[in-house]
């Protein structure tokens, strides 16, 4: 067994880490989170051109770098640690996975190269105002015209939906219900008939938008009505990538709490010398390592084509959510009054922990899925 990162992967991580340390210090996170766009186009260009990060998950035949999900997850983990404000998760994870899972060869050929080069940014519009992550909750209707769809309905909580150049939309065929009739399609972000509203989020580092489709012309992606499996696979992959991002954030917080506990003196000694604090930190490490192992294993399972992926995805998402939330709350606690202030950075991650926890389904939802999927052997 070789459940470890290779030398190249370690080197790759170092490169990404260095880039992010340079481009995404907390001051930049704070600057960008106050903007409506929520990212810096210059940094996006650099991470696209110098590091080719959006190309990572895209196969070479479609203009990508053809790396695996493990490399993608390394990037996500580092972005979670540095809380990079950029449409990477939306474009390179959500949209690319959806296109790869749902599209035909021709469609991949026409859509992916530009996403891989970073020249266009895409996202996936799946949830609606009911906020649900299962296929049966999709209500937005695709009316089939000759060679295109006409979309009517709304999407909500769409990551970077207000800035994306390309929207991959999950719709359902008129008259269908449940798991049937699920259809992917693609449409330009500025196509006529789309009304975009930036939502006011608790976590300002990840922008969410509501999109209203008033008779919007869209191109089908894959076979109309047959998108159910592609959707599930996309959501599983997204959950795994997000889990890796979450453990990166949790790691940052744990490190910062431990560092602080070694310098803050109360009662004539550093607070890290109190067993109450040591045990809290030991608990953090336990949660984090369990979550990391699950997230890493699930990422490797994507590359290996493991048939148990759905169960692994839900397990990773549950573990990462629990760890991130607990570590975020305890990180504030260990900082005392300082941790409750705006100027100290912990709250940025504390808010991301919650927004990630509810994105793609909360831990209770994923725990139920773990059980169902385990029973079904998937």
């Amino acid at each position, binding site marked *: 067994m070789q459940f470890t990162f290779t030398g190249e992967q370690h080197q790759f991580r170092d490169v990404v880490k260095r880039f992010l340390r340079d481009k995404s210090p907390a001051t930049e996170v704070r600057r960008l989170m106050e903007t409506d766009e929520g990212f810096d186009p210059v940094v996006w260009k650099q991470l696209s051109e110098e590091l080719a990060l959006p190309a990572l998950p895209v196969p070479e035949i479609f203009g990508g770098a053809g790396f695996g999900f493990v490399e993608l997850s390394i990037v996500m983990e580092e972005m979670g640690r540095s809380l990079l404000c950029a449409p990477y998760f939306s474009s390179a994870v959500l949209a690319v996975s959806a296109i790869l899972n749902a599209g035909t060869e021709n469609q991949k050929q026409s859509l992916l190269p530009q996403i891989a080069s970073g020249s266009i940014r895409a996202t996936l519009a799946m*949830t609606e*105002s*009911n*906020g*649900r992550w299962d296929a049966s909750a999709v209500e937005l209707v695709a009316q089939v015209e000759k060679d295109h769809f006409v979309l009517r309905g709304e999407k*909500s*909580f769409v990551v970077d939906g207000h800035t994306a150049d390309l929207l991959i939309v999950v719709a359902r065929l008129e008259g269908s219900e449940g798991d049937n009739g699920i259809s992917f399609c693609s449409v330009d972000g500025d196509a006529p008939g789309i009304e975009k509203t930036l*939502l*006011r*989020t*608790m*976590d300002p580092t990840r922008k*969410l938008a509501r999109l209203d489709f008033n008779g919007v012309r869209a191109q089908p992606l894959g076979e109309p009505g047959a998108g159910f499996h592609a959707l599930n696979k996309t959501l599983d992959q997204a959950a795994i990538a997000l889990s890796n991002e979450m453990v990166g954030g949790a790691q940052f917080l744990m490190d910062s709490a431990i560092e602080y506990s070694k*310098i*803050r*003196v*109360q*009662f*004539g*000694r*550093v607070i890290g010398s*109190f067993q*109450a*604090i040591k045990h809290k930190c030991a608990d953090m490490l336990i949660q984090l390592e369990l979550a990391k192992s699950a997230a890493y294993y699930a990422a490797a399972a994507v590359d290996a084509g493991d048939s148990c992926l759905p169960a692994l995805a839900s397990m990773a998402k549950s573990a990462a959510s629990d760890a991130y*939330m607990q570590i975020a*709350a305890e990180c*504030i*606690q260990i900082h*005392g*009054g300082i*941790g*409750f*202030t*705006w*100027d100290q950075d*912990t*709250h940025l991650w*504390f*808010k991301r922990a*919650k*927004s990630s*926890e*509810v*994105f793609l*389904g*909360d*831990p*209770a*939802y994923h725990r139920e899925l773990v059980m169902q999927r385990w029973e079904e052997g998937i």
Partner: protein
Amino acid sequence: MDFNDSTEEATFRQEARDWLKANEPTEAELEGLDGIEAAKLWQKRKYDAGWACIRWPKEHGGRGASAIEQVIFGQEESKFDTPEGLFTIGHGMCAPTMMAWATEEQNKRYLPKLASGEEIWCQMFSETAGGSDLAALRTRAEKDGDDWIINGQKIWTSGAHYSDYGVIVLRTDPTAPKHQGLTYFFIDMKSPGIETKPIKQISGGANFNEVYFTDVRVPDAHRLGAVGQGWQVAITTLMNERASIGGGGGGVNFKSVFKLAQTVNIDDEPAIKDKSVRRRLADWYIQESGLKFTGYRSMTALSRGEIPGPENSIGKLVGAPKQQDMASFALDLLESSGAIWDPELSQEAGMFQATYMASPGIRIAGGTDEIMANIIAERVLGMPQDIRVDKGIPFNEIPTSNS
């Protein structure tokens, strides 16, 4: 045991309820007022009718009511949506300290205005050097004739920016061991040389402050307790602080989360039908009831003139983490919309999100969870104290983070 009101209690309850019903501020009256103005309006109305701080003696602005009557009034008032919170520190912590340590003339001067809401008080204990370790505070007071001159800085002072007076613990003898060199005062917040700077909290709001003192004069007559007795006086305040922060009710409680679970769905059914949701809610119901009944035991002891037992010290340690868990759970129930914080769109005007961001503070303010647990272990259970490395050492010789 008897949980029913006695005849007198029932009469009192009816009287309180009738008055509250007839006098609760209307929407029109509150229109255009900010939180402070609204709270002041309501407090003054209660005061004028003899319903403010009812347990305080009449000459101090109260009505000399019994502990049980105070509980009854509190129960009845909580059924109305009246402005609250602004006076918690003044009424709950500063006033009891004044009653225990100030002169009768001082109490007659200051307490009625505190009761009427005309004057707001704050508590200036914490410093950057000393939060949990309060006795590590450094802000100096030096005697100058009949005055003391204060130099230094306090931090995390809730409400300092709108307070008229504040209680403060200061170091008057840096050569004495740390608990012995402290003296307690109350101080006019408008004194020359005091500067308050708001500190922004994680929610983006700013309710607490840094307070800077540059050659601020406070008359010796505003000293509470003897010179060097400040620690003992501070304990009076802290005991009352823990009682007043207590369960930390707030908007997120069993009822509001239960209501939320009725309105949101899991698998096409109201969440309240989901077994795991029910189990969590039941846990909180049990905790909340436990706290409530524990409160009854404390109140009964108080009403008989006895000192409440260990049960009185668990409130904050149960209540604060519970509130954090409930707010977090409520956001999970809201699923994707839990991440949206928009008073116009979010359920209950964003109360669950606001509480998610306020609750970490409740676990820190007024003694952190860890300090509360230490207090229970050492003072209530009588377990051996942690080894104090700074015990008996003159304050100015104790090593600090900066040295």
